[in-house]
């Protein structure tokens, strides 16, 4: 296991499109780092450059201190889990896992021992002699993970590994993945567009937008102190409410308030009046959409449990001034 460092890594496609502009990320040994961003933000390209599947236009990728820019993917001592798993369809699960080891000339008993160990960790025991097409989505995902595991690589690279699973299974596999990381203490670099996955899995999150890194930080830090308006919008569901600064006597261009920072009724330092438009009941939480004035913006607030709400009601909102996120004209955080 080892750390990864990306120094000024840049990707310019022939034709001049810049997919990643100078990314600097230091990943410590054993850290779980999630690259998150909307589609087309360059997160997958960045991961593929680390894997060696994409050429690096400028900058350096170092794995365990050694610059690997010129090394083939197979020589970088990494393992990758693909979005569609990329299992070899004609090989059994066992053969799929053994293939990479066989290619480096590992002796058979050791291959078998590693497969047994990985199968135990991932509960693949009875599946070893099946073909990928005889497996369910979740099982395929586990096999793809197993294929990465047996390599005992310096780092695991995962490219949206859960996005092909249904919602329930995704939550389940997310838990398994987190547990697996805690057990292995290996370096994980994980790409996703799902901010929930990012928040729940990561030790640190790298938020990307349009080829640039917007912010790097622990999930809590990113949630509590988003560095830019983009990060504030992207992380958190329902997303942060944005209001013109002037509305609350602030001098900044825009202010943001998380739905849970707004309470219905109550007595905060800030008060807003509006009319209830609709209520989303998600079971654990209820979110009230409130229109501020006739043509004013709509804000979302988390409603306290038990309160009776009906669309059309006049409601008042309150919040603490400390809960306000302030953003300047350029979208950067102020204060």
């Amino acid at each position, binding site marked *: 296991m080892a750390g990864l460092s990306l120094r000024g890594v840049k990707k310019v496609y022939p034709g001049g499109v810049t997919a990643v502009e100078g990314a600097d990320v230091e990943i410590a040994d054993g850290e779980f780092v999630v690259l998150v961003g909307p589609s087309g933000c360059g997160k997958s390209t960045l991961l593929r450059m680390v894997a060696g*599947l994409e050429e690096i236009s400028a900058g350096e990728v170092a794995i365990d201190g050694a610059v690997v820019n010129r090394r083939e993917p*197979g020589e970088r001592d990494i393992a990758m889990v693909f979005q569609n798993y990329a299992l070899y369809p*004609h090989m059994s699960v066992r053969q799929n896992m053994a293939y990479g080891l066989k290619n480096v000339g590992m002796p058979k008993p050791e291959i078998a021992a590693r497969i047994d160990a990985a199968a135990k960790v991932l509960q693949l025991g009875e599946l070893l002699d099946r073909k990928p097409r005889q497996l369910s989505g979740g099982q395929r995902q586990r096999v793809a993970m197993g294929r990465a595991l047996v390599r005992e690589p310096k780092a695991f690279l995962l490219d949206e590994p859960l996005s092909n699973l249904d919602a329930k299974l995704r939550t389940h596999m997310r838990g398994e993945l987190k547990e697996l990381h805690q057990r292995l203490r290996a370096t994980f670099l994980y790409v996703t567009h799902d901010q929930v996955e990012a928040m729940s899995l990561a030790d640190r999150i790298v938020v990307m937008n349009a080829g640039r890194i917007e912010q790097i930080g622990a999930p809590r830090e990113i949630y509590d102190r988003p560095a830019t308006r983009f990060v504030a919008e992207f992380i958190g569901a329902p997303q942060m409410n944005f209001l013109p600064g002037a509305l609350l006597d602030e001098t900044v261009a825009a202010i943001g308030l998380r739905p849970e920072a707004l309470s219905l009724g109550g007595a905060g330092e800030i008060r807003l009046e509006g009319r209830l438009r609709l209520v989303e009941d998600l079971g654990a939480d209820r979110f009230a959409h409130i229109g501020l004035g006739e043509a004013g913006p709509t804000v979302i607030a988390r409603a306290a449990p038990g309160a009776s709400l009906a669309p059309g009601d006049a409601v008042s909102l309150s919040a603490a001034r400390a809960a306000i996120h302030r953003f300047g004209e350029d979208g950067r955080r102020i204060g």
Partner: protein
Amino acid sequence: MVENRPFLSFLTHAALILGVAFLCFPVWMALVASTHGAEALSRAPIPLWFGDRGWENYAQLLSGGLPEAGGVPVGRMMLNSLVMALMITVGKIAVSILAAYAIVYFRFPFRMGFFWIVFLTLMLPVEVRILPTYDVAVRLGLLNSYLGLSLPLIASATATFLFRQFFLTIPDELVEAARIDRAGPMRFFRDILIPLSRTNIAALFIILFIYGWNQYLWPLLVTTEERFATVVVGIQRMTNTGEALPVWHYIMGTTVLAMLPPVLVVLSMQKLFVKGLVEQEK
């Protein structure tokens, strides 16, 4: 359509049975004719049921030389046909799968140019380029050899195109996974591409084997010695008896024998063949 109308299903069955009978009748006639003597066949009405000369006819065909066919036993002709058909089939598949591999997976200058050149040869079957090809074959000293019989028929645009289309459907992720698993180009080809193309190869094998087996014009041209005659050419020779009566019982017997290897190939590989045409392992 699920309809339960007895008359309609009777009609469709009748039409299908009629079609099958229509297709099978000539085969039946050949089979029947090969069991009669020469006299029985030259008289009207032609027999529609088996005669009693079957064993003799086939024994004569397989072992003894027929003067009508240049004195070469049919067994020998079938062997020639088999060698030619197999060389063409294996050669075509090997050349075209490698060509398609190069075109799909490697970046080299004029890649698409080469592809289109290969593709254009679709318009140049042997029949069109027969004179220049014959000239080349003569200069290379390929007349009267197995190589001469098969080599000019080996290049195949169709098979190259088919493999190319199949390779394009293989997800990039699989190629990338193989790269991470340290499979070099040859390993990837051998361990991943060929096993995945198995059903395609089988389907092509059948089509190309029959194509090779049925070759007529080129073998006729490039072989002058009787010992290289193929069975299709042999049948033609037997019918060219000039003044004498054609030996229909032998001709039909040879025809039946000539039908056997393609039938065997189709029967033994039809499961893979159907799979290759309709489904793809992904």
